[in-house]
């Protein structure tokens, strides 16, 4: 018994990556265990009910799961854990959602007490209709998502056999002239298509847009794409025109400025959630065409009203794309239950090893507050403390030193506070993109940056996501949205596009020592640290020293 896997009593699995059987073991446990952390030596997987149920949905049974654990485990696996796994997996499939020729959508059970139990729940009662027979109950078609979500919370996940509508057909092909989908993108598309709906998790810069395009080419139907902002919508459009048989006329943009509905329509979350007189007028978009596929870009940002509406769209294929499915509000489970389970996931370091994203050197620069700053920091109001330490003047000098060090490379300076950014922009003599910058101006500046006309760009959090800046090689983060893990990962993602010359990307996070800034930074870095990005720490003095 000397396997690579150690099963912990809290249902985490520790996988020793340097073990000769590690790869086989990873394949064996991947169907049911979530990769939680992937640092350099030991990867941590977690066995959750959701993961076990997804495995059941994908056709694995409890015996396979138990065998995988027992076979690769280094130590005897506690019996209670195996029993628990079998018991949990046994709960899946007792209830099925299916289409009944006469009654429409129905919930059927193979285990009558379970049906009785769930029908007794107050949360289920409003979602179901008449009892058809002892084992069957009608479900309001519009509540398909709701009831699935509710049953999941009650611990009796329903197997959804009701299928998907095909939607309005529309010919879409990938135009693979001189390029082709990378193997992992191909896997992601297949994984998604096989599962029907779900979420694909790929690192920033690994080409999620192409996964979306691949999925559209498989669906060959009208598609609604939801993105975070207008700039991103334009990038999607350009990419689709370039990579697929779609022409510019077939792709519509539905945003604050334009309201086009075409066979492929790209809408922003912002416009969908615009509220007028208590209603969301633009949510109608979902019903405006018979969509065959809905793509959610950056699904971890999905706003609450869209959540609600997505629940009603269970008959349509849904694809969620994200790099970082961590939400500080803990709503990851809602994403899984409404969009679908995770269909594909690749550790960042693995994609990096394959050369599809640039290797990155992550550095935390610690700056000391001056004595007077420390005094001021100590007396600051609690809510002002972060702002105070995050915008210390020393950071400006460090940033200048870094910009000087990497002179000639494409540098992004990213921050949270506009004052700080404006000041930096002035000192570095670089343009600043912030919330009030018009879309036109933004695109002009991004284009100039891409073309190398501008070397240094100072951006606020508007550039956190979906901004494709392939040539950026250095990112300097001076402040952030407190402890947001996904923001940190997204910002690193800005510099991860593989470089033409294949050289390394640099990510600097400038942090004020011994302050709340340092605590937030530690939290922010956790996601990336768990993905195997080892931060180096340097003192500001080293950088500033001549």
């Amino acid at each position, binding site marked *: *018994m000397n396997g690579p896997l*150690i*099963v*912990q*009593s*809290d249902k*985490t699995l*520790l996988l*020793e990556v340097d073990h000769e059987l590690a790869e086989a073991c990873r394949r064996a446990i991947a169907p049911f265990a979530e990769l939680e*952390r992937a*640092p*350099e*030596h*030991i990867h*941590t997987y977690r066995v959750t009910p959701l993961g076990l149920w997804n495995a059941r949905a994908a056709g694995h049974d409890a015996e396979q799961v138990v065998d995988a654990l027992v076979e690769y*485990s*280094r*130590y*005897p*696996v*506690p*019996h209670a854990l195996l029993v628990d796994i079998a018991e949990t997996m046994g709960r899946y499939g007792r209830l099925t959602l299916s289409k009944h020729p006469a009654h429409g959508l129905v919930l059927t059970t193979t285990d009558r007490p379970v049906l009785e139990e769930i029908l007794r729940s107050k949360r289920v009662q409003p979602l179901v209709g008449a009892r058809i027979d002892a084992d069957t109950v009608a479900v309001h078609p519009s509540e398909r998502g709701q009831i699935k979500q509710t049953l999941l919370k009650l611990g009796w996940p329903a197997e959804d056999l009701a299928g998907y509508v095909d939607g309005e057909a529309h010919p879409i092909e990938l135009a693979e002239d001189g390029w082709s989908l990378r193997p992992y993108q191909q896997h992601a598309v297949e994984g998604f298509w096989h599962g029907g709906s779900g979420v694909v998790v790929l690192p920033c810069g690994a080409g999620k847009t192409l996964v979306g395009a691949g999925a559209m080419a498989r669906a060959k139907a009208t598609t609604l794409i939801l993105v975070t902002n207008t700039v991103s919508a334009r990038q999607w459009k350009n990419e689709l025109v370039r990579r697929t048989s779609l022409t510019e006329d077939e792709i519509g943009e539905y945003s604050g400025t334009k309201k086009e509905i075409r066979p492929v329509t790209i809408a922003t979350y912002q416009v969908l959630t615009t509220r007028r007189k208590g209603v969301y007028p633009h949510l109608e978009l979902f019903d405006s065409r018979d969509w065959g596929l809905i793509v959610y870009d950056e699904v971890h940002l999905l706003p609450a009203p869209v959540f609600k509406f997505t629940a009603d769209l269970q008959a349509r294929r849904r694809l969620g794309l994200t790099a970082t499915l961590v939400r500080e509000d803990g709503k990851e489970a809602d994403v899984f239950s409404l969009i679908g389970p995770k269909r594909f996931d690749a550790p960042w370091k693995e994609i990096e090893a394959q050369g599809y994203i640039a290797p990155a050197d992550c550095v*935390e620069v610690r700056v000391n507050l001056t*004595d007077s700053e*420390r*005094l001021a920091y*100590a*007396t600051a109001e609690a809510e002002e403390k972060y702002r105070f330490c995050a915008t210390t003047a020393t950071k400006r000098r460090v940033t200048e030193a870094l910009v000087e060090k990497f002179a000639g490379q494409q540098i992004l300076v990213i921050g949270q506070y506009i004052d700080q950014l404006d000041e930096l922009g002035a000192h570095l003599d670089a343009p600043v993109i912030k919330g009030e910058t018009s879309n036109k101006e933004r695109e002009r500046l991004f284009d100039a940056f891409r073309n190398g006309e501008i070397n240094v760009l100072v951006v606020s959090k508007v550039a956190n996501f979906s901004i494709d800046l392939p040539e950026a090689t250095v990112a300097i983060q001076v402040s952030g949205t407190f402890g947001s893990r996904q923001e940190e990962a997204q910002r690193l993602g800005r510099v991860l596009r593989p470089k033409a010359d294949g050289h390394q990307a640099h990510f600097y996070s400038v942090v004020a*020592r*011994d302050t709340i800034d340092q605590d937030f930074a530690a939290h922010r870095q*956790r996601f990336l*640290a*768990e993905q*195997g*990005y*080892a*931060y*180096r*720490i340097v003192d500001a003095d080293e950088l500033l020293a001549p």
Partner: protein
Amino acid sequence: MGIGELDREAHVPEGRPRGTAGSPRTLAEALRARGDDGLAALLRARPDLLGPVPNDLTQLATRAGTRASVVRALERLDRFSLQVAQALAVAPDPAPYPVLLGLFTGGRPGSAVEEALPRAVALLREQALVWGGDDRLRLVRTARELLSPSPQHPSPTGLGPTVAEATAGMSPGRLQEIVAAAGLPSTHDPVSAVAALTSLFTDRERMAALLDTAPPEALAVLDRLVWGPPYGEVTAKPAPPVGWLRDRGLLLPVSPRTMVLPREVALHLRGGRAHRAPEPRAPELSVAREYRPAVADGAAAGQAYAALATVEELLKSWEHGGPPVLRAGGLSVRDLKRTAAALDVPEPVAAFWLELAYGAGLLASDGEADERYAPTPAYDDWLDLPPAERWVRLAAAWLAATRTPGLAGGQDAKGRTLSVLGPDLDRAAAPEVRRRVLGLLAALPPGAAPDPETLLARLRWERPTRGGSAADRAPAAPGAPAAAPPETAAGAWASDSRPAPASSPAPSSPVDLRERLARWALQDAELLGITGRGALSTAARALLNLPLDAPAEPSAEGGGVEPEVAEERAAELLEPLLPEAVDHVLLQADLTAVAPGPLLRPLADALAVLADVESKGGATVYRFTPGSVRRALDTGQAASDLHAFLAAHSRTPVPQPLAYLIDDVARRHGHLRIGAASAYVRCDDDALLGEILADRRSAPLRLRRLAPTVLAAQTDPSSLLDGLRAMGYAPAAESAEGDVLVARAAAHRTPVRTPPAPVPDGPPPPDATLLAAAVRAIRAGDRAATAVRKEPAPAAATPGGLPRTSPAETLATVQAAAMTGSAVWIGYVNAEGAASQRVIAPVRVEGGFVTGYDHTADEVRTYPLHRITGVAELADDEV
């Protein structure tokens, strides 16, 4: 009915001719005829007879016939032996073997019963519940009284009283009418009338003829009563079918409203069978799953390791200020909940671990003014043992423990909640049930896991009557008129195999205690790693002293090895299966360390200070945080020590962020120094002090700047420390000499404690030496008592003089008389010193008094035994 007809089980056969070899006249004689092995077997089966060692066989027989002892013995019978005893109780006394067999087979050959009956009879004989040869099987009188049907205690056979018993109080006229209605020749003598009726009911052909004439409704009534309970309610004017039956004596009245089906009639209707479902064979255990023994052992070892880790974690968490002891003893519900949450197990499981640690003597109350629980010094010794031996210690303590954590949370008879570690959790039957459960598991091939339900069914068969319920009831005189016969068969002996919905036991009744104990035993065994995936592990077999690689005999008692040797062997078997301790960790850049196995203890202890445990199991995941590093620095280690420690124990290079973390915390650690005497803050950096002073959060500390580098505080040093830490600083306490105080609390221990001794029920099973000695002593005493003396005993022979006997003899004779109901002649000295002779028929002997019917005074009187000078039996024809 003359005295001579009563069975004289314990009679001293003094001066009488010995019975012929084939048929002993008394139980004592039957015992005397046994070999030493037979006596030893009796004493082993009924160890209560040994306390104190009886003087001679007469005394042994007397004691074996006492109610308490017989009840005890009956409780320990398996279901079939009990059924045999029950059948004997409704059979004529004495009963020849074929009659007994007939009561089971009803004349038809039933091979299973025929096979099992000799064994059951032999068992009953061995236990001195039955004596006499096969032609004259006799159930001892007390057992007969306990088992024969009476209105208070309906027999599980469902049979009622005999015709003779049921007509005891009936008027001769009524009897005449019945005899006439049954078509028998009339007789004026009630005794012959009863005899005639009895012979009619026991005559197969005539009875069949009589029933042929019965209306179908009457037969339906009989059908309802035939398998019991035999009693039925009637109205003042019964329906015609009932009237028909009553007129012919097929139903006899027991009270104005109740009728009973006489035993003879029921037996006829049943075809002679005493039990509806005789269960001659023990139910087989069915194997639910069979694993390779190595798989089961592996799973068990995994669980054994988890058990060690859990106990250690539990006790470690109680090292510094364990929970308080409730005033009534035990742990409060809230503390149990907290402990369960800390261990991440359900509360009943937490209760199990607590009781296990307590039972193994690792945990006790510290006995101080505010009593708290804390690990004992024995815990430290235990920790020093190798893991396998640690497990053996726990398992051995569990095997012998009488404490039952499963009862905690319930209520005792007075409605008080039973708390974990509290009083009243001892159940004497627990170890025996546990042993039996494991014994049954051991009877399966290695690696086989039984279906628990079949195992429980087997246990129910082996010990059908449970608890002391029968002994608790007031003894009712047999044949006494009953005020209100119970309608349902919910008596103490009514534990038939058929489920009786009306008599479902209350959750806390002793009836199902054994079953609950058995269930707990199964659960606990799995938790402790005695079993793995339901199958008994090899190490556990060794510990139980059973053969390792073959199924043990179901009744195997263990093979002769000393317990210490067995424990050693179990440890040896377990040891290679437990995870090997590792001496290194893997450090990772996300500030975690993974120990890929159990760590060597010093390493684990050091790491537990330096980092927080994030996940446990086969491996341990630690996370380094500024707080944990500061904790390590607080124990007096320097940053360089920590670096060296990590470098020495890490298989991988120390990641830069971790090194940085330690340096960062260390840089700030001890930067601030706080005096204990006057509570001051001093710091070389006066800006920092200014910073603290300026911070509004420092206001409650009431700091004042003494010098550019020193602040004085009005609060005590510890609040000051906490306050400053809360503000995000890392101050260090310092002594009067200016040294950094090392903050390391001594682990709390109780004074030396002995583990709670198991509380077994009754004396321990005697070992061979004791048995041999006891048998020798009894033989010697018996020889002395029965030696044929040349002279007749003078006291008893002298007419007019007071009889003189030794107090022991007096007691034995009076007890024997009370049992047989015979009269004795006693010499008695009253309080004034006046001597008298009396003839009394003792009814009850207890508490140093004998109560009996005094023929001399013609009333019931009670005499203190110590005033009785002596006792002599009366000649048979004297009363």
